[in-house]
């Protein structure tokens, strides 16, 4: 971190503030004169709105991410209990609590040592020893990765075509990409059921055309899960790619052609490397929510192979085992956040090295 003081300069200098106060009338002037100079300086220096503006996203993260995560983490360390809430408290007291009679180091330490901590890691041990969970994790990551890959394969040409259109067409196409999201997500997944099932639209059409003799089994297969995820998350791939590709300077491709690169070569050596950040962003935007996807595999997916989102919900609602469910959630978060943070770290370090 740089040690540069990035604090905004106060808009009001003390001298200016006193001048302004002077204009407001003698009473204000008197107040300002009476207040110790350090007070007025403090107010003037720190009462810029900047601090508040910066604090809002942090506060949001603290309230709606960090705090719930810590609660889940806490639950994952405790034991299951048939009660409400259905887990044991993490802290307890030894039988006779010493009363703090005087504020001395030894008495406070005696008080603190009477707190018992019941945390243990046996839920995590349970997860790692049980193939059901490990398989679910691997299966989820595999499904998410394959789906993200197909989103990229389908989304890249679409984003590329959009970026090459005239501005009017661009906006129309952009709207068309986002338009399906105006309908309920659940409704659209149900629609896929109608399309994919044995007596669904696709099978009926193919049978009527005589292309197949008996209905294809598409429902409750991996294929259906891929279809569902790719269809639902395609906009999250297209949008970052489009914003990236749209910024590309078309003269770069002209320069490549001028230097003897055929169109395919120019794409591979110029457009593709320059769109890498868009590819990574789109991939992560599809991959991360797809790993924890619950609705699509539940409705379209195979019944014998569960994705981790389904396992998690089963643990919570069917088994009522909150600690194990929490542990599943924590492990999933670590599995996802770990690689992303590592990736970001290496990328920013690479960028810094380039700048040197």
């Amino acid at each position, binding site marked *: 971190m740089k040690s540069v003081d990035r604090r905004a300069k106060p808009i009001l200098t003390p001298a200016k503030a006193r001048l302004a106060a002077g204009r407001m009338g003698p009473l204000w002037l008197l107040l300002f004169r009476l207040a110790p100079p350090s007070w007025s300086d403090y107010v003037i220096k720190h009462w810029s709105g900047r601090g508040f503006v910066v604090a809002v996203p942090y506060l949001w993260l603290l309230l709606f991410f960090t705090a719930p995560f810590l609660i889940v983490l806490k639950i994952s360390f405790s034991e299951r209990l048939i009660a409400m809430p259905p887990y044991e408290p993490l802290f307890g007291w030894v039988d006779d609590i010493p009363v703090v009679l005087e504020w001395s180091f030894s008495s406070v330490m005696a008080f603190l040592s009477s707190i018992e901590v019941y945390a243990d890691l046996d839920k995590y041990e349970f997860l790692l020893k049980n193939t059901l969970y490990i398989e679910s994790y691997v299966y989820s990551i595999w499904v998410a990765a394959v789906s993200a890959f197909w989103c990229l394969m389908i989304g890249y040409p679409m984003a590329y075509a959009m970026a090459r259109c005239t501005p009017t067409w661009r906006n129309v196409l952009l709207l068309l990409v986002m338009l399906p999201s105006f309908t309920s997500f659940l409704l659209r997944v149900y629609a896929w059921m109608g399309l994919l099932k044995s007596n669904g639209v696709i099978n009926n059409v193919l049978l009527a055309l005589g292309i197949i003799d008996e209905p294809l089994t598409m429902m409750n297969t991996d294929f259906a899960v891929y279809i569902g995820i790719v269809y639902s998350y395609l906009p999250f791939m297209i949008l970052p790619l489009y914003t990236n590709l749209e910024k590309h*300077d078309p*003269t*770069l491709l*002209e*320069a*490549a*052609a*001028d*230097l*003897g*690169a*055929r169109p395919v*070569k120019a794409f591979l*050596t*110029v457009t593709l*490397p*320059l769109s890498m950040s868009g590819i990574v962003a789109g991939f992560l935007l599809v991959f991360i929510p797809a790993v924890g996807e619950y609705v699509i595999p539940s409705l379209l997916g195979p019944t014998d192979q569960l994705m981790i989102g389904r396992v998690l919900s089963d643990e919570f609602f069917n088994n009522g085992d909150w600690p194990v469910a929490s542990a599943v959630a924590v492990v999933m978060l670590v599995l996802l956040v770990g690689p992303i943070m590592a990736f970001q770290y290496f990328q920013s370090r690479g960028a810094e090295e*380039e*700048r040197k």
Partner: protein
Amino acid sequence: MAEKPAANPRQPERGKEYVRIQNVTKRFGDFTAVNNVSLTIYQGEIFCLLGGSGCGKTTLLRMLAGFENPTSGQIFIDGEDMEDCPPYDRPVNMMFQSYALFPHMSVEKNVAFGLEQDGLPKAEISQRVGEILELVKMGQFARRQPHQLSGGQRQRVALARSLVKRPKLLLLDEPLGALDRKLREQTQFELLGIQERLGVTFVVVTHDQEEAMTLASRIGVMNRGEIVQVGTPTEIYEYPTTRFVADFIGSVNMFEGRLTEDEPDYVRIESADLGGRIYVDHGISAAPDSTVWAAIRPEKIEISRERPQGSDNTVGGTVKEIAYLGDMSVYLVRLQSGRIVRVSQPNAERRNQARITWDDSVWLSWDPSSPVILTQ
């Protein structure tokens, strides 16, 4: 017309014809960007396409590079018809106005790009890249990324990249546009040196007449999609053939008048605009009594307090404005007819007590060979 000026010492012996543009027209919808242009460019010369924005010069250049196809007409490069020849197959390289350096590649990689497309061996590529970077004095920046370079350095890299394939024809689109004045001047001369050493034919597009004058062995002035005049810088400046060219290149005082005496060895023009007569010491081809325009460059007009001899080519006025530019001063003189005339005089003496000042009554006069008589 009077005797042609001596040959430009920089202009090479006219080489063989290298580029032939034949009746080329380019339309974008209803708009005609290039209108029936025919042009021949010879090997080893620096040809400048000069014109204001939207005159079609860049479109013409892009057609040479192959990024646009002519609506009609043909382009021959080295005797070959370029129709259906994509940019990546043309023996031509271009230096883009924006430089178009690949932002994700180092300087080295940028320059090597063209050679890699030809599938040359690695050792040869690195040797040629090194040589060309030395030529443009960018050897020590080989590993930098384009965003780490200044505008002038990027321009050199762009030049190196377009030269490294040793093209016979190099197209330059406003090559010095983004540089500041000092750097531009210096780079102009470096560009000339490089061109001389490599013997490449340059086609330069520019809107900057100074750039065109310094670089070009020949200039083609363009206006509204057409080539108005082609000639050496001296020809263009001293012998413009139309009012547009006279006005576009440098500054000029234009007087409308009537041809009163039309003899084979002199003409006299009566100009109400000037409030006097203009005598020119050579014949022109125009109908007697027709309307003509006399163009006189500011530096060819003498300004003095005393009335010169003779009544032709002399007119009185008052100094309205003086711009001191250091090396010279520009005077704006109001004539009795109300016309403002621009006169420039070199400041040869450091301390000139008798220097003409505001509101002085002055006489303007010029040599009978100075005015250029234009009929269109």
